[in-house]
C-alpha cells in the first residue's frame, strides 16, 4: 500500500438520512458500484481525501525510483540491468498516471510536488529504508511490490473512475515487478553462501518495514470507515496485512529463508498465520522524518527539482517564443 494513514476530515460516518440530497444521491451511486467521474458532483471531503491518497501514492512511485536506482549501475548482469531499468521506467510511468488522475480533481502536479518538497505531503514509509545489497532489489520486488499489489488489486474497484483506471494499468505491471523480485530471490537463495546470506539479510531488514506499509491497525479509525464508505479504501489495514503474511510465508519457505519472527505460527482456527506486529514506534519515527534515508530521499527529490529549474524554464520560454512566432506569422500572412 503506497498510501498510509490518509485523513478524511470526517469525525464520524454519517447515515444516508443525515445527508443532503446531493450527498445522498452520491453515496447511493457509490453503494451501487457506479464510478464517479471528474466533472460530476462529489462531496468536497471526498475530493480532498482522494487528492491526499492519490498524491501520496504518486509521490511514492517517484521516490520509489531512488532505492532501486541505487543498484541500476551495479546490477550484476545486462539482463538484470535491463529488467530493473524497465521496472523503474514503469514506476515513473505510474507516477505520471497518478498525477494525471489527481489533476482531474483540480490540483496540478506542480502543486502536489511543492507539498512533497516542503514535507507537507508524505510518501510511503518503506522508501526511507536503504537498499544495501543486491538481494534488497529482489526483496523490494517480492515484498514491497507484493504488499503494494495487495491493496492496488482491490483499488481497481475504487469509486473514482480515473483512479480505478490508473490502478488497472498499474496492476498489470506490478505483477511483473513482483515476479522479477522473487526471481532474484530464487537465484540468491539457491546461490553461493554469500548470496544466500545477502538474501536472508534482505528479508531480515525488509520484513517488518513491509508489514508497516499497510499502516497501523485501523479497525477503529473514523477515517478508514469513511474511506471505505466512499469505496476509496476497500479493506482494513489488518485484513490486507494478514493476507500478505499468509501469501508470503510459504514463498519464504520455498526459498529456504527464515522470516525474522519467532512468533510466526499457523493458526488453524483462523485459517491464517499468527505473527508479530512491527515496531509501531519505529513506524511513527520514520513517518516523522527519522527513518534511515528520509533526508537522502527527500533531499534527492528536492535537489532534482531545484537543479532542473533552468531546464523547465528553458522549455517554457521556448514554448512562448514559438507561440509568439506562430502568431506573428499568422498576422503577416493576413
Amino acid at each position, binding site marked *: 500500500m503506497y498510501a498510509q494513514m490518509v485523513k478524511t476530515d470526517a469525525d464520524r460516518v454519517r447515515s444516508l438520512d443525515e445527508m443532503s440530497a446531493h450527498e445522498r444521491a452520491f453515496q447511493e451511486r457509490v453503494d451501487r458500484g457506479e464510478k464517479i467521474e471528474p466533472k460530476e458532483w462529489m462531496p468536497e471531503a471526498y475530493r480532498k481525501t482522494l487528492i491526499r491518497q492519490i498524491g501520496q501514492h504518486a509521490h511514492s512511485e517517484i521516490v520509489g525510483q531512488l532505492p532501486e536506482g541505487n543498484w541500476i549501475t551495479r546490477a550484476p548482469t545486462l539482463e538484470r540491468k535491463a529488467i530493473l531499468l524497465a521496472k*523503474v521506467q514503469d514506476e515513473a510511468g505510474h507516477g505520471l498516471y497518478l498525477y494525471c488522475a489527481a489533476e482531474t480533481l483540480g490540483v496540478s502536479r506542480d502543486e502536489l510536488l511543492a507539498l512533497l518538497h516542503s514535507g507537507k505531503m508524505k510518501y510511503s514509509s518503506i522508501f526511507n529504508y536503504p537498499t544495501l545489497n543486491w538481494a534488497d532489489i529482489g526483496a523490494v520486488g517480492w515484498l514491497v511490490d507484493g504488499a503494494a499489489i495487495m491493496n492496488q488489486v482491490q483499488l481497481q474497484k475504487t469509486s473514482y473512475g480515473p483512479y480505478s483506471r490508473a490502478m488497472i494499468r498499474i496492476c498489470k505491471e506490478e505483477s511483473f515487478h513482483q515476479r522479477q523480485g522473487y526471481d532474484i530471490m530464487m537465484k540468491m537463495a539457491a546461490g553461493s553462501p554469500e*548470496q544466500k546470506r545477502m538474501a536472508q539479510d534482505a528479508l531480515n531488514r525488509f520484513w517488518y518495514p513491509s508489514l508497516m506499509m499497510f499502516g497501523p491497525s485501523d479497525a477503529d479509525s473514523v477515517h478508514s470507515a469513511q474511506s471505505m464508505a466512499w469505496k476509496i479504501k476497500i479493506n482494513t489495514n489488518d485484513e490486507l496485512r494478514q493476507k500478505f503474511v499468509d501469501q508470503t510465508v510459504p514463498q519464504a519457505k520455498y526459498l529456504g529463508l527464515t522470516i525474522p519472527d519467532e512468533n510466526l505460527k499457523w493458526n488453524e482456527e483462523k485459517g491464517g498465520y499468527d505473527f508479530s506486529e512491527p515496531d509501531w514506534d519505529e513506524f511513527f519515527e520514520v513517518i516523522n522524518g527519522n527513518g534511515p534515508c528520509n533526508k537522502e530521499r527527500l533531499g534527492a527529490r528536492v535537489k532534482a527539482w531545484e537543479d532542473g529549474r533552468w531546464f523547465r524554464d528553458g522549455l517554457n520560454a521556448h514554448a512562448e*517564443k514559438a507561440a509568439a512566432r506562430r502568431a506573428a506569422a499568422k498576422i503577416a500572412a493576413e
Partner: protein
Amino acid sequence: MSASANPQVSQEAMVEFLLRMGDSTLILGHRVSEWCGHSPVLEEDIALANTALDLIGQTQMWLGLAGEIEGKGRDADKLAFLRDAVDFRNALITERPNGDFGMTLMRQFLFDAYHFQLLGKLEGSSDARVAEIAAKAKKEVAYHLERSADLVIRLGDGTDESRKRMQAALDELWGYTGELFIPDAVDEAIAAAGIAPNPADLRAPWLAEMSAVLQDATLKIPASTYAHKGGKKGVHSEYLGHLLAQMQFLQRAYPGCTW
C-alpha cells in the same frame, strides 16, 4: 561455428568492430541510467530510463555477437563485466560524466546523430547478423535522436541561462566528436568488406544534421578541430575506471555466481 561469416575480414577485426559498437552503447547506457530518479521532470525520468534500456538491449546484441564470433566462451555478460578499461573500445564521448542535464542532453544528441547515421549504413551491411541488429537498433535510435534534437533546440532557443548551458556543453563535448569519424586499420578492413561504412564518410551527413539542429538552437559550432582520441585503442579517460569499478562490482567481488 565461431569464425566470421565474411571471409574477407579477420576474426579479430570483426570482434574489434563489434566491441566498439557494444562498448559504446554499454557505457552510454550506464551513464544515462545514473540519472534514474534525479532528472528535472518526470517525463525525462521516463525518457532516460527508456533510452538506457534501449542501449543496454543493443549492448546485449552487439556483445553477444562479438563473443560468439570470438569463440572463446565469453558471452555478453562476461565481456561487459570481466574486462578492464584497457580492453574497452567505447568512444570517449560515451564515458564523459553526466554533468548538468544540458551536458547529458548534448552528449546524447551528438552521439545519437552519429549513431543514427551509422546504423542506417549498417542496415545494408554485407554481414546479415550485423544488418539485423542495426535494423532493430535504428528504430530505437530514431526516437533517441528525435528527442535529443528537439530538446537541444528548445533549450538552445529557450532562456539566456538554458542557451548558455547548452553552448557550454557543446563547447566541452565538441572535442570528443572527432574520434567518431577517424578511421583506423580495423575500420578500413571492415569497410572494405562492406560490413560497415568508413567512419570518415559519416562525418558530412552527421555535420549536416548537426548544423541544422544547432542553427535552430541558436548554438555555435566551436571553431576548434582538435579531436581527443584513444577509445578505439583502449586508452580511456580516468572516468572509465571508476565507472567499471561500480558496474562490475558484483561480478568481481563474487566471481562465478549466477544472478
